[in-house]
């Protein structure tokens, strides 16, 4: 086990409208979170993996009619900090005495800890709710929503694979949850 130090500081701003047919809120956070271990990153402080310099969230809801309402959500966050290889080298050298071909393996050498930022995370969701029935004994409503309406590919992680054909290395990004429409029926009795 190793022990180190963590620091976190920032500023939060929040604005909310509660009354009227259109209401909602806007929130913004600026923050910085670091870690420092003598055994890691040559003892230098580095960004915590989930450090998020800018965090913006917007929620708007609108009462269209007595039965219909709509809402809009937008979130934005600075991408996660991650450690990527910055170079590679050949090691464990050998020579095939019959063919004369050299044999070795390639090893990735990693850069400074969490020195690379993944692309920013942002998405917008839209939702409409229809109140179908509302009585003392039974309530039901329908919700039609689209998660990630502009189909943003928000990165989950990045990895690399060698491409033998082009003799280079290619980067791939894995992301979760593309555009997701959904229909939901809620009821209470």
């Amino acid at each position, binding site marked *: 086990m190793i022990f180190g130090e963590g620091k976190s500081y920032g500023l939060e701003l929040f604005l909310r409208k509660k009354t009227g047919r259109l209401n909602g809120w806007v929130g913004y956070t600026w923050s910085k979170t670091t870690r420092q271990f003598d055994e890691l990153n040559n003892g230098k402080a580095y960004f915590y993996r989930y450090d998020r310099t800018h965090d913006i969230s917007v929620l708007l809801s609108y009462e269209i009619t007595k039965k219909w309402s709509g809402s809009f959500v937008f979130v934005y966050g600075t991408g996660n900090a991650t450690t990527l290889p910055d170079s590679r080298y050949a090691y464990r050298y050998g020579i095939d005495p019959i063919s004369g071909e050299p044999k070795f393996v390639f090893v*990735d050498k990693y850069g400074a800890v969490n020195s690379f930022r993944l692309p920013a995370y942002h998405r917008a969701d839209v939702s409409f709710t229809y109140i179908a029935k509302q009585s003392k004994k039974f309530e039901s409503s329908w919700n039609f929503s689209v998660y990630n309406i502009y189909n943003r590919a928000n990165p989950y992680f990045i*990895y690399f694979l060698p491409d033998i054909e082009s003799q280079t290395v290619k*980067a791939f*990004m894995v992301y979760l949850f593309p555009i997701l429409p959904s229909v939901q029926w809620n009821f209470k009795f």
Partner: protein
Amino acid sequence: MNKIKKYNWTLLAIALSILTSCEKEIKIDLPASKIELVVEASINQLSPTLNYVVLSNTLDYFNPSLDLAAVSGAKVYITQGNVIGKDTLFEPNNRIRFYDIANAVYPGIYVNPLFTGVVDKAYLLEIELVDGRKVTGKTYIPKPVTIDSTHYWLKPNQKDTNAYFYFDWFDGPEQNNYRIVLKKGFLPLLTGWGYGDRFYTFDDAQINNQTRPFIMLNPFKYGDTVNVYLSQIGRQEYLFWDSFRNAANNGGPFATPVSVSSNVDGAIGSFTGYGITQTRFILR
């Protein structure tokens, strides 16, 4: 009814194509990295083909070149030392130079056919590059172990069937570290450790001061000849090769940042003294 079925399949196909699109190739601009020297130095008391120093440079990560990036023209010296009390004295008289004699064919490989390692002696590695940079490293050649017994089991006269073997030796009370390399084939030598087929690195944290078996559960085939190189190495050298194993097997979607624990000052890599015990299994 057929129209409804057709629309259902169409909708399903669209939904699947959207929901399964969760990976794509991207372009990344990585900042230019500092080129670092990589040192792979090996000495031992048994096999002349395993006394060498390989010098190379790190490569840009997306560089299409797959060459070694060899470093030629360096001055490489290995000096044998004598332990006097708690100090080790490296005498200039014991300094031997290694040369890249096959530079035209195998650049970056420094050898001296007259060098022979001695058990229980310490060694100093000194490298001076053309640009004036200096790198040093220290190691020693531990006493090789004695293999007490060897065993193998297989189905007699059954070609293409699996063949297993194991051997054991006594692990002493002191802290010991081992590296085993297996090479299939009739040639009982390794032209560089990288010519081996299978590599194992371990210490005696789990089994100490008792007979220690090495069981080859990943089988060879009936009829194979397997050369075994069982080496004792130092603690710093073990830490390097243990971290190297993690680094070399790291990659793909589940890669994690792994750093090797170098035992050379001023470069990445290792200077390892091997106390080698060699044996051979003919699995038939």
